[in-house]
């Protein structure tokens, strides 16, 4: 007998509510600002086989991670019991991203039957390795990037494995943070497990499973309806990178398939900027989702029409034991490649290039007032590209992030013991067009104690955000370190010494422009001038106004 559609709908709503509830629980209890403020985290529910059923708000780059983790756990473990919680962080053991991102997953049983999994992922501040914060531009192997957790049980039928917890905390430079964050994650999967268990008991496991299946089928139907509207054909792009490499993508769109081919790309790097295959798949999923219905739920079905081809041993499909700490800058490049490749063909769906870098910024040292260690780990906000009928937005997180918040200056000064001298829109030239790109950021940290460090890894520094239809490219991402003896500019630097009164100036790019600047509406140009975004002289030069 077929299930009552209203009951299925109610269960599907509960899946979403449960993902959201896990997200809220974790956010409120986490220790690290990267989790509770930046919200570098995600929650989700999979079915018994590890297919994504629903995900909590957070960052889109984490939505497709948890299913892959659960699938790995299922392939490795035969003895999965109620009350177990698994932990993984290693991309060759279901971890997908880098070692800082701990994934916790818990099976949900009803009457002895495995019916679902609840899971979460969050960036932890320090998991060991060669550098504070675990990320180093000098890493050559994953072993230098911290403790690898190959999908092991951290809770055994409800009993915490103190040995695993001890190994974890002993390997971290920030054991209290790590312990607090792991507990927040355990509490979150447990909240979800309890809710789903109640739901399945109430409606029966059979109906619960039917609701999950039909939800995924709905995801697929919704995606295919949008896929049908996309232009068909094969599209290709080669793009040079800041470091001189050239990346390639071929996208083939047919009536029932969306194939992204990344096979023709350079070999994996000896440094930490490698992506894994799972990570590259997620990048393609994010763009595919943006094109095929950003408003409908994202689940396993949403991605069924998508195929991603990679070559093992390449930068987009690195082999063990490649270093992967800065994986995200390579991932965002692959995502932006697809975006740039398709934008000219679907300008109503895809705006011009945005600052397109996580702009991961790590600053650490001793808090001058408390004497405690502080570590800033934060992505930056920047300018978004203009669309075919609108200016880009200013100072917003890149498309890998979503419900992510920057750190207020008042909180940063208290927590980190440095000064924030400036947090402003970047008004340097770039991104002009009939529609302008949005503004990037200028953020100045003034260091208050000796023996601090700075690590950054930004892309889109030399090769800038790409324009459309004759607009100007964006201004580029970089960081400047201002010392008494001069100013240095960087886009990649690891463990740079910073000391009292040094100023770290983070500068992020404007988004790129769309259309010939000379076609820009004169009233809009006048508003740009009045706002102090451009001088009258330069406006007349660029816009002919």
């Amino acid at each position, binding site marked *: 007998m077929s299930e009552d559609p209203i009951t299925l709908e109610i269960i599907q709503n509960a899946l979403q509510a449960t993902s959201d509830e896990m997200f809220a629980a974790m*956010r409120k209890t986490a220790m690290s600002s990267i989790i509770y403020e930046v919200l570098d985290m995600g929650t989700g529910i999979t079915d018994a086989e590890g297919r994504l059923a629903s995900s909590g708000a957070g960052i889109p780059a984490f939505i497709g991670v948890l299913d892959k983790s659960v699938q790995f756990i299922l392939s490795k473990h035969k003895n999965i019991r109620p009350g177990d919680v698994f932990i993984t962080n290693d991309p060759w053991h279901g971890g997908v991203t880098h070692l800082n991102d701990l994934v916790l997953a818990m099976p949900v049983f009803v009457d002895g039957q495995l019916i679902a999994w609840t899971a979460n992922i969050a960036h932890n501040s320090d998991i060991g390795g060669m550098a504070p914060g675990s990320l180093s531009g000098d890493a050559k192997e994953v072993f230098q990037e911290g403790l690898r957790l190959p999908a092991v049980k951290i809770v055994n039928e409800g009993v915490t494995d103190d040995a695993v917890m001890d190994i974890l905390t002993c390997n971290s430079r920030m054991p209290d943070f790590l312990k607090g964050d792991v507990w927040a994650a355990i509490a979150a999967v447990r909240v979800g497990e309890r809710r789903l268990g109640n739901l399945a008991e109430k409606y029966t496991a059979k109906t619960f499973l039917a609701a999950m299946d039909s939800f995924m089928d709905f995801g697929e139907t919704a995606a295919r309806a949008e896929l049908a509207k996309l232009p068909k054909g094969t599209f290709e792009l080669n793009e040079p990178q800041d470091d001189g490499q050239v990346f390639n993508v071929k996208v083939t769109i047919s009536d029932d398939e969306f194939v992204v081919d990344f096979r023709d790309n350079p070999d994996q790097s000896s440094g930490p900027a490698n992506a894994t295959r799972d990570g590259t798949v997620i990048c393609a999923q994010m763009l595919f989702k943006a094109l095929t219905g950003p408003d409908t739920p994202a689940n396993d079905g949403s991605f069924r029409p998508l195929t991603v081809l990679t070559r093992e041993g390449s930068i987009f499909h690195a082999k063990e034991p490649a270093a992967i700490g800065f994986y995200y800058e390579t991932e965002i490049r692959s995502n932006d490649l697809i975006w740039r490749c398709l934008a000219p063909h679907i300008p109503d769906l895809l705006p011009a290039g945005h600052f397109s870098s996580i702009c991961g910024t790590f600053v650490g040292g001793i808090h001058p007032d408390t004497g405690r260690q502080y570590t800033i780990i934060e992505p930056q906000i920047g300018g978004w590209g203009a669309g075919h009928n609108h200016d880009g937005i200013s100072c917003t997180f890149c498309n890998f992030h979503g419900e992510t918040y920057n750190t207020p200056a008042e909180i940063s000064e208290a927590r980190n013991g440095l000064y924030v001298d400036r947090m402003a829109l970047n008004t340097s030239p770039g991104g002009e067009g009939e529609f302008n790109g949005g503004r990037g950021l200028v953020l100045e940290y003034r260091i208050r104690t000796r023996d601090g460090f700075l690590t950054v890894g930004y892309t889109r520094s030399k090769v800038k955000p790409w324009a459309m239809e004759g607009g100007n490219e964006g201004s580029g991402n970089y960081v400047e370190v201002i010392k008494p003896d001069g100013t240095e500019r960087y886009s990649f630097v690891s463990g740079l010494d910073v000391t009292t009164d040094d100023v770290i100036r983070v500068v992020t790019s404007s988004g790129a422009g769309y259309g010939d600047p000379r076609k820009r509406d004169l009233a809009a140009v006048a508003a740009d001038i009045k706002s102090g975004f451009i001088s009258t002289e330069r406006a007349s030069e660029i816009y002919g106004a």
Partner: protein
Amino acid sequence: MSDTTRRVATDVGGTFTDLVAFETGADGQLKITTAKSDTTPPNFEAGVLNVLEKGGIDPATVDFMAHGTTVVINALTERKGVPVGLITTEGFRDILEIARGNRPDFFNLHYVKPAPFVPRHLRAEVPGRMTYLGDERAPLDLSTLPDIMENFRAEGVEAVAICLLHGYANPTHEKAVLAEVEKLWPDVSVVASHQITREWREYERTNTTVLSAFVQPVAARYLSQLDDGLKSRGLPKSPYIMQSNCGIDSLAATSKIPITMVESGPASGFWGAAELGKLIGEPDILALDIGGTTAKCSLIEGGEVKIMTDYWIERSRKSAGYPIMVPVVDLVEIGNGGGSIARVDDFGKLHVGPQSAGALPGPAAYGKGGTQATTTDANLWLGRINRGYFCGGSVEADMAATESTLSDLASKLDVTVDDAARGIVRIANDNMVNALKLVSLNRGHDTRDFTLLAFGGGGSMHAVALAQELQMKKVIVPAAASVFSAWGMMMSDLRRDYFATQLMDLTAGAGARIEDIFAQTEAEARAAFEAEGVAPDKISFLRYGKLRYQNQEHTTEVPLTGDITDASLDKIAQEFHAIYEKEYTYRLYAPVEMVGVHLVARAEVGKLIMAPAKLCPADAQGAIKATRAVDYALEGVHEATIYDGDALKPGMSFTGPAIIEDSGSTVVIHPGNQVSIDAYSNIHIVLEA
């Protein structure tokens, strides 16, 4: 005569201005009068005077008047405030535009960021810095202020907002800028952030200050016209104004910082729920207010409403919205009311709300051209609402229109018309259950420990089904449920919530520091009340500490009692551990730190005192109007006894299935429910165990 006390609540909404008058006679008996008239923009006081006249109330005879208004929220959402100029710290004028950088609609590559309320050319900077500890790092330089004011005037600015970095820790610089602005431009409306909030986060505080400035002249004009109008008709004392923190405040204080009224609409109902709970011995309540377009809910524990400063307008899955850092009752609101439209999407899924049929065309059954089925139509179709007594008999239900819209949905869903109507009720209930879970289960509260109190036009129709779903044992529908919010206003005290950020470890010396912050804040509150003529013995305080584990961000509020010394620190920490564990399921063996304080200052100013009536015999036969078939969705169709709500008297009791009808509301009572009427005419519904 003076042995009758007359209290009046008026409420100005978008369409109607409502009046509820409560007259307490010498015998303690309460008489309630209601009246309604059109809202009269822009001279809103005219509508208030009209409704008083319509209700037969002579303002000269009113002992106590409370007033609620949507003027602030309307000015914000309709962008009908005044042009604002912002003065902020050097290096930070773009904070208002940068906001927090989040993009809630995260797969959408065309996300539109909310535009700041002050454009860049009206955001000015002054040099000078405080540290987070409140020490001066660089002196304030006011030399550019005359030019800034000149520019603001030339650009048509009508209100000035001042928000400086770390102004919450030390407002000296803000006060100096404020004084200088008042000197340079004496008649401009001006507000500084420390006058509104003493909490950190510069974007939230700046935006709050700007939005307050934006509405200030509009609200001040409104309030002064109202006051003048009422006084000219003889009202002896200015009305009190309903606030978002469930309290009322004086008209004079509200005129200065009107932003505190922003969410005053729902607040009075939730306050009423808390007060009613205290009156009838139900301190733990889930309160649900279902109106025409939205449902709102809030949790009351131990008789206390929860007040927070994490409030946003226009925030959704599609937009980051705008923060307003003022004390607002902790509530969840969803687009799900009687007029919510049901539709089937392209993928065959049924949705109810958030779109609403509004007052026009309204539900299809209004017969005013509504072509989409609403929750009200489904309730009519299922016999839950009386077709022959729709809207208290004032509207003839157009059942043909209802059937046609429901048939349309049924064919899209491939089910019967009855099933389509049941589906609407079930989905609407599910939406509300999820909202109720957000304020209860999601915050560590077990719904089984709470009583559901349902009010507003639609609350009593869905309450029992929701309580069943949440395994709650009891539902209460208050007397005069449709004007319950007005009753809440009559039960309010003068209330001001003070929040202050001050970070400290719970180590030796902290006790005195915490006591000092409270003592200072209490002195400030006391001085303000006494300056307004409140008797000192009427003033009382509640203290809360905002605590967290070191390095966390979010805080948990812990009630504090008695003077705080170093000896109390351990007890405070233990209470924090316990409350934290209750909410989040675990505790940590980590140091606890205090982030700030929350002080509630209250003063009683003549609220209503309720007298219980004598109970009559239990037999409710005399109140029976009829019987009819009612479809209870999941529980099927039952022949229900229909009771006339006006004929039910204290002490009566009966068993469901039943419906209670009066002119304002319909109470749906499921099979097996035990119903009794208490001494204050509230309806108690005990669910079958």
